């Protein structure tokens, strides 16, 4: 068995006509040269990479000749072979003197050809050859071809006008192919432009995308050191998703990020507080205390305060092994929650809440800082 390496030198020594025939034979399956069975254009791409500058020019002319022959009489080319020929734009025509002319041919062919695979190759070819068309062209193309060309259209739009690309995403059906294409384009844009340039465009439309786009995207930007949470949590379903992640300890986000996100903050924080209380009741221990307290530090409502008071009570009753730290955190929380404190004081007074003792201790300790609050509580008869 020989290695059967392709003898590129002998091919490159051929006349231009022979070279063109060799390329056509490899594209149409008539060559015995071992190649990639799924990618017929790979052999010519390989040949191009092995060639010196002068030989490269010969290959560029040959491929362009074949392209012209296809454009003049497309019926003589099977569609799969035409597709492979068009795909030779990368790498053969990108740097050639035929670049602009080839791109113009692709645009003309795009109007004439019906086969979807050839059309996809043409759009990708136009992009590769750096011809920037108005976004309206691609929107019309989407109306004509639909989701079958979604990746090529994403790319063409993204490289022309990133904002137009973002707006376009609001019109598409998020099939698996669209999600895949979206992340290909986003990663390529991140490589070219960087996360900071890209983030503002994304944040404007993020809340309109489905969760199987938003969640990986937030993770992806987390890797880049940019939080997209504020935009993502405009929608309650995302807010709740991140809330759950925080409570389960699987999120790389801070509770403060989650709690400060979302437009319906009152509702959201109440939901969060209830969830935190639920977690607290099943996960007592140092880690749970600290995490819950940390998560609650931006909240201000009765449920939260009740929880903080429970924690305080526990620390006084000796359930917690790190009393000082926990007590200070809970105290700080309660002292900062003036409105809720008054309400809670009132409720505990009426119901003989067992937390009352703990609450009174807290209120007394808070007197220096919150004198008015305590006076008000006493005046209304809620604290005796």
């Amino acid at each position, binding site marked *: *068995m*020989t*290695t*059967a*390496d*392709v003898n590129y030198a002998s091919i490159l020594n051929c006349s231009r006509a022979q070279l063109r025939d060799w390329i056509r034979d490899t594209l*149409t*399956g*008539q*060559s*015995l*040269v*071992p*190649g*990639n*069975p*799924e*990618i*017929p*254009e*790979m*052999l010519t*791409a390989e040949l191009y*990479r092995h060639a010196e500058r002068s030989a490269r020019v010969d290959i560029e002319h040959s491929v362009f000749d074949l392209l012209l022959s296809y454009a003049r009489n497309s019926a003589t080319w099977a569609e*799969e072979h035409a597709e492979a020929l068009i*795909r030779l734009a*990368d790498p053969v025509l990108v740097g050639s003197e035929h670049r602009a002319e080839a791109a113009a041919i692709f645009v003309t062919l795009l109007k004439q050809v019906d086969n979807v695979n050839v059309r*996809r*190759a043409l759009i*990708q070819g136009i*992009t*590769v050859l750096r011809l920037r068309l108005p976004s309206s062209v691609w929107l019309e193309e989407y109306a004509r071809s639909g*989701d*079958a*060309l*979604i*990746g*090529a259209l994403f*790319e063409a739009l993204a490289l022309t006008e990133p904002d137009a690309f973002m707006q376009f995403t609001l019109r598409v059906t998020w*099939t*698996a*192919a*669209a*999600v*895949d*294409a979206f*992340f*290909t*384009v986003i*990663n*390529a844009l*991140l*490589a*070219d432009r960087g996360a900071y340039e890209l983030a503002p465009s994304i944040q404007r439309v993020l809340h309109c995308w489905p969760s*199987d786009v938003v*969640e*990986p995207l937030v*993770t*992806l930007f987390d*890797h880049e050191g940019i939080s997209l949470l504020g935009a993502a949590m405009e929608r309650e379903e995302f807010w709740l998703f991140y809330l759950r992640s925080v409570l389960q300890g699987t999120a790389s986000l801070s509770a403060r990020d989650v709690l400060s996100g979302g437009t319906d903050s009152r509702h959201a924080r109440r939901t969060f507080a209830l969830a935190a209380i639920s977690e607290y009741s099943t996960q007592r221990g140092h880690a749970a205390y600290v995490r819950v307290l940390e998560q609650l530090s931006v909240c201000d409502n009765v449920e939260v305060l009740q929880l903080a008071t429970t924690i305080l009570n526990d620390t006084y009753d000796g359930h917690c092994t790190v009393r000082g730290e926990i007590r200070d955190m809970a105290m700080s929380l309660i002292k900062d929650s003036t409105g809720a404190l008054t309400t809670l004081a009132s409720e505990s007074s009426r119901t003989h809440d067992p937390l009352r003792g703990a609450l009174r201790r807290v209120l007394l300790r808070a007197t220096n800082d919150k004198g008015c609050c305590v006076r008000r509580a006493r005046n209304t008869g809620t604290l005796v």
Partner: protein
Amino acid sequence: MDRLQRLQDETLGAQAVRNLYAEERLSDANWLALIAALVAQPSMDVGAIKLCVIHAMRHIWNMTPFPGGIALGVPTKIPYGRASSSEAFARLVSRSPGGTSASTLLKALRRQMLYDLKALKAQWKGRPLGLFPMWATFELGSADPFRHSHTFATADDVRACLGLPPETGPVVSFIYELPAAVSPHYPTIIEAYAADSWNYYFMPSNTNLAGKTLPWNRTPALDTHHEVVHQVVTADQLVTVPKEIW
């Protein structure tokens, strides 16, 4: 069989003819279809003969997608491996509905392979890892399907051992599990010669218990490697993050 002789006279056709004679697992009906196609081919041009064989193989393949039958004795719940030149993989994906240009895909691919498996799968949702039929390798008793006596230090080592085309540049390796509905099959000459570009390094099994890739003739000489073909699987089946080897 003068047409096969004509094919055999060409260095690059000789292996294909040897394989045609060595194949033992096709039915009589499949052989008759192939012989009838060759006899009906009027030209002695080697390119025309090759096309004739391809068309006959495709016809048989359309009638019987896996003409060699299910490969008994190959466990399905083991990691399978597949390697492809990075550029070839990008060019393959670029042909799908979600495909962008190959250069953009390649650029994205190199970033995406830095993420963890969960993040990668979320981004490659439903991405096919190849075309039908997919060729794969495996190593019984090992979680690493690429495990081999020879170390895969470079991209050419991988290409040589797995009989990939002698291309340049890095290769990307995938390790995945087959979904329950997909069964591996040992490949026959039908899978090897139904595509436009022939699988030069294919060697048919001479028993029903093995499928082997013929490696390139490198120093040191490489052992043959197991291979199977199966239906297309997607990135959802990956068990590790794909790795690029230069």
